[in-house]
């Protein structure tokens, strides 16, 4: 096992996933890829007063996510684990699976949240699709919602 990827949504529970991956990375002398897929920019946001506002808001969110991801990466490199952070914009499932292929990932670590109906309907389907489509071993770690 040379490459371990963690799919992160950057919620507070991300550390739970990182702790799991840490043990595996140490034992296998593997590299950890922290991957966060950010939602794509809206295609068209109009010409009114709103757009600039929205665009700046989007940029702020991305900046914030970038910072968080960097911090998480540092917690790994600080303890001597080879790690790299990737922030990619795109459709979540497709982009994540493409990265898993491209980086020749041997294990994908992913969070599995609670059972709420709303969550299952919206976000749960992302998890389900990944489980169905992924071609590498997948470690699904349950954690609580923030």
């Amino acid at each position, binding site marked *: 096992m040379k490459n371990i990827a963690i799919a992160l949504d950057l919620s507070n529970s991300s550390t739970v996933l990182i702790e*799991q991956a840490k*043990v*595996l990375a140490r*034992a296998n002398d593997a590299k950890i890829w922290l991957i966060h897929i950010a939602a794509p920019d809206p295609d068209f946001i109009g010409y009114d007063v709103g757009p600039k506002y929205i665009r700046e808001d989007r940029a702020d969110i991305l900046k914030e996510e970038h910072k968080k991801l960097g911090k998480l990466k540092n917690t790994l490199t600080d303890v001597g684990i080879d790690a790299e952070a990737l922030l990619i914009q795109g459709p979540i499932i497709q982009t994540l699976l493409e990265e898993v292929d491209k980086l020749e990932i041997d294990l994908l670590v992913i969070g*599995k949240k609670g*059972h709420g109906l709303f969550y299952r309907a919206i976000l749960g389907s992302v998890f*389900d699709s990944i*489980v169905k489509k*992924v*071609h*590498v*071993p*997948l*470690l*699904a*770690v*349950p954690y609580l919602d923030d």
Partner: protein
Amino acid sequence: MKNIAVAVDLSQGVEGLMHKAYEMSQLYKAKIWLIHIEAPQPVMVDVYSYNEADLMINQRGKMLKLVHAQLDIYRKELVAEGVDVDVVSVEGNVAQVLLQELMKYRIDLLIIGNRKHGFFYKTIIGSIFDEVIKKIEIPVLAVPVE
């Protein structure tokens, strides 16, 4: 992590699961539980003559013997590598009983095959996998098997 369970269905590709289980048990110095759940025998209906019913019971007996022999082979292979192994073979509703057994033996990680299959498989057998993944409250390692 002290107890690792492998959900064994004795179809092709189990070797891959066993190998992963061995790796993980070495890493966490954990015990391995080989868990096999046999779906219950279909209820007899009147259309069977007594002879046919007898035949079915005999066949099932033979099949269960084969299953246990196979589980024992896997157990011995792991024991030969110095791993602490126990075999659990229970009859019942597969997903439900599997989850109960995981609780009973305080399993910390479940290793299960993630099969890529056609529509028929997905509707019948795939639903067990889906149900387990949805309801489970411990980390799951889903290993793709062909």
